[in-house]
């Protein structure tokens, strides 16, 4: 090898190594890009969650003047003293205390506009407080009242049209330290509503749980039993081949087609109630079946054959050997697969949309045949709304859904690691 050749080889080698490093960096960049998108997703969601979880309040000196409670000239006969408290003119009380808070405002039109600061629910807030403490009548109390939707939008810096008058008043209130934030519990204690501040996701959550209950009740036993059959009893035949191809195919069918199946079979042919967790659960159970069967088969085939052989040797029948010895050993794996299938079903939206679970549900569903909606569908409905406050609610619902999924997945992971240790 001549000197010139060595030099050119060395030069070539260094450029080849540089190309290798560049390729490695490209790979690292791709991985980073994937993580960045995960991060962007997390930021987009969490930045919107906080406004949805908080309520802004205005602390006001509220005078409960007796004349507001004699607003109704006479109580209808047969009513008790609380009638006077329930039907008092709380609107007037709220208005007067707002006017007192802004004594510099004299124009009657502006005085009326002041009421736009507080939410219409403020009257209910006052009513509930007075019903709890009737002795407040005739006294002056410091009470925190919920701000209106418009004020909430300004305080959360939402991209909505802003009322300059409200902004001015709110900055004045802020300077006086009369504004505070509280945790908005309505999100977790109520059903859907037309008003974003009183809309909650409990009805959707209950609907999701009912739906999942139906689908697990069907797909877990059926999936487990068919896995046992395919793994332990079936001899290779044309029928079992068809079943296996079918299961793999079913796993790859787009979820929306299951919705069409449910619509055509359960609703059109069997006339089951539309929008019900029963129909949703039946449809989702068909989607969960392949996942559960594949996972259960893997778990069953991992059980050492000696266990079954031993049971058979001491006189157990095949059914006894399998159900008393093989299946219990495979149970952690089977449950892991089922949990993953539940996680998948819990986030499924498209088939439920087709089955009419995209409904405005205020009351909590209590039966499997009640009209219901599901958490992911609720997210869809809120996310589609043009109001930013609803979009924020959707972000909060996404967080709840992701927490549920994370819990299910961690449970599955814990089970899996325990199982691996034992074998």
């Amino acid at each position, binding site marked *: 090898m001549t000197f010139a050749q060595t030099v050119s080889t060395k030069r070539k080698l260094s450029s080849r190594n540089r*190309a290798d490093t560049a390729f490695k960096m490209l790979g690292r960049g*791709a991985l980073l890009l994937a993580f960045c998108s995960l991060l962007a*997703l997390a930021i987009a969601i969490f930045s919107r969650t906080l406004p949805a979880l908080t309520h802004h309040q205005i602390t006001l000196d509220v005078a409960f003047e007796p004349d507001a409670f004699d607003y109704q000239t006479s109580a209808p006969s047969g009513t008790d003293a609380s009638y006077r408290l329930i039907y008092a003119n709380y609107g007037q009380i709220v208005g007067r205390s707002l006017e007192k808070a802004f004594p510099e405002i004299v124009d009657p039109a502006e005085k009326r506009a002041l009421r736009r600061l507080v939410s219409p629910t403020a009257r209910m807030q006052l009513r509930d407080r007075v019903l709890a403490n009737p002795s407040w009548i005739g006294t002056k109390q410091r009470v925190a009242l919920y701000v209106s939707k418009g004020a909430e939008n300004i305080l959360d810096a939402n991209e909505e049209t802003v009322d300059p008058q409200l902004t001015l008043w709110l900055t004045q209130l802020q300077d006086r330290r009369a504004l505070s934030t509280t945790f908005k519990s309505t999100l977790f204690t109520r059903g859907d509503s037309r008003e974003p501040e009183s809309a909650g996701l409990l009805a959707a959550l209950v609907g999701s749980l009912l739906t999942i209950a139906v689908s697990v009740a069907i797909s877990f036993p059926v999936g487990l039993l068919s896995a046992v059959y395919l793994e332990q009893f079936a001899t290779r035949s044309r029928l079992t081949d068809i079943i296996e191809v079918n299961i793999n195919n079913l796993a790859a*069918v787009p979820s*929306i087609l299951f919705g069409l199946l449910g619509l055509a079979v359960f609703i059109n042919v069997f006339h089951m109630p539309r929008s019900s967790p029963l129909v949703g659960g039946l449809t989702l159970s068909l989607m969960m079946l392949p996942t559960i069967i594949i996972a259960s088969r893997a778990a069953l085939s991992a059980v050492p054959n000696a266990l079954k052989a031993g049971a058979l040797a001491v006189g157990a029948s095949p*059914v006894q050997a399998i*159900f008393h010895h093989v299946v219990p050993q495979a149970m952690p794996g089977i449950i892991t697969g089922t949990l993953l299938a539940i996680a998948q079903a819990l*986030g499924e939206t498209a088939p439920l949309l087709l089955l009419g679970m995209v409904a405005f549900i205020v009351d909590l569903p209590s039966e499997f045949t009640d009209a219901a909606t599901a958490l992911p569908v609720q997210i869809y409905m809120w996310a589609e709304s043009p109001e930013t406050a609803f979009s924020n609610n959707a*972000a909060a619902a996404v967080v709840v859904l992701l927490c549920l999924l994370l819990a299910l997945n961690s449970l599955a992971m814990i089970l899996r690691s325990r199982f691996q240790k034992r074998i």
Partner: protein
Amino acid sequence: MTPSHLLSLGVIISACFFLFARFRIRAATLQEQAPSTSLPRFYGWYAAVLAFVPIFLGVCIWVFASTTIVEILLVNRLDSLFASLPEGGRDRFLAEMYSFLDGQPLRTPSPDIAAAANMLIGLRTPVVTTIIALSTVGALSLGFLALRFIEPRFNAHAHIDRTVVFLLLLCSILAIIATLGIILSLLFETVRCFEFVSICQLFSTDWLPRAGNQTALDGDAGKYGVLALFSGTFLISFVAISIALPIGLLVAVYLSQYASHSTRRISKPMLELLAGIPTVVYGFFAIVLVGPFLQRIGGFLGLDVAPQSAMAAGAVMAIMIIPYVSSLCDDALSAVPSALRNGSLALGSTTAETVLNVLLPAALPGISSAVLLAVSRTIGETMIVLMAAGLAANLTLNPLASVTTVTVQIVQSVTGDVEFDSVKTLSAFMLGMLLFVTTLMMNVFAFSLRRRGISHGEV
């Protein structure tokens, strides 16, 4: 009485027969001084299972078929009324009656409909009573029949085992029934759809479905050309794949060839996390961040980006399928025999050269199958496109324009009031059928490619 009550009744009857049978076989063994073939509890199970079968069938009929039975009876009773109605009037009459019964009448019901609804309610009770009576009598008679069979020489255990295996077989057949159900329901409604829409019409570009009540006004059933829908679907999936394939492939190469063990241990679960996020969350992400972001960038560059562009939907879908693509590519790369990789490295190639000149060409069938599977996944994806893509059918190749997809139109056609006799609803099933066939062909082709790749690698 509800089906669950009947089910509880069945459990009680079965439990009684279990106890009877066990008592009887114990008495018989004592009497005949001969040991029984099976343990006493198997005789109990034998009787209990036999008694439970009729109740179970009864509950199934009640849940799934009672409405249909009642409807058939009602149609028989109202034969003369239906004869006077115009063609298709019977289905409309029944639909109106059901919506009246559900408490959501489409319009003020005519006296005929109210009378029919009353008759239907009147028919329900005798049908349900018959089901309950027949299944109870069946349970009792089968139970007593089982008790007569029971004697020490009778091998109840073998019978129970056979029943269990039969039950297992039934469960696995359910997977076939589900697939058949999908195919048949799609096929049935598609054929009905083609009664209204000619096949030639499918190959036009106009998609303007119209609801039944609109059609009733002027007789125009709308236009059902699917070309624009499929072009939109493939445009979005092209955008998604052209982003996700390079990234997914590079991630797979980096993690399998370069990354340290600890990087891999952290990265894999993170990617799984990305894969486990529900699609509705990605849709939300597209609405609140990616869509407005792309629009702002477009405005900055002087491009006209639609608020719901194919680009936004495709980009978000790409994020969704990156973990899927990278795990499939990882499988394809690891299916390449390590002798090839080691040989290349031993000859002095750098890792990058090994990947580009040896691994990727050898893994090409596997990677192509990954692309096909990913495309089939993006075609069937609903929520992201429903939230991030548009509703109007545009035949365009511009990724910055708004397009619609097959899945979006399926959802649009069957949400709201569903009438099973309107072309709009039927067209959803027709689209579903096309979607099913497309994705099935892609999956089958992808799996055959993958098998070829693996067998090629083994040689």
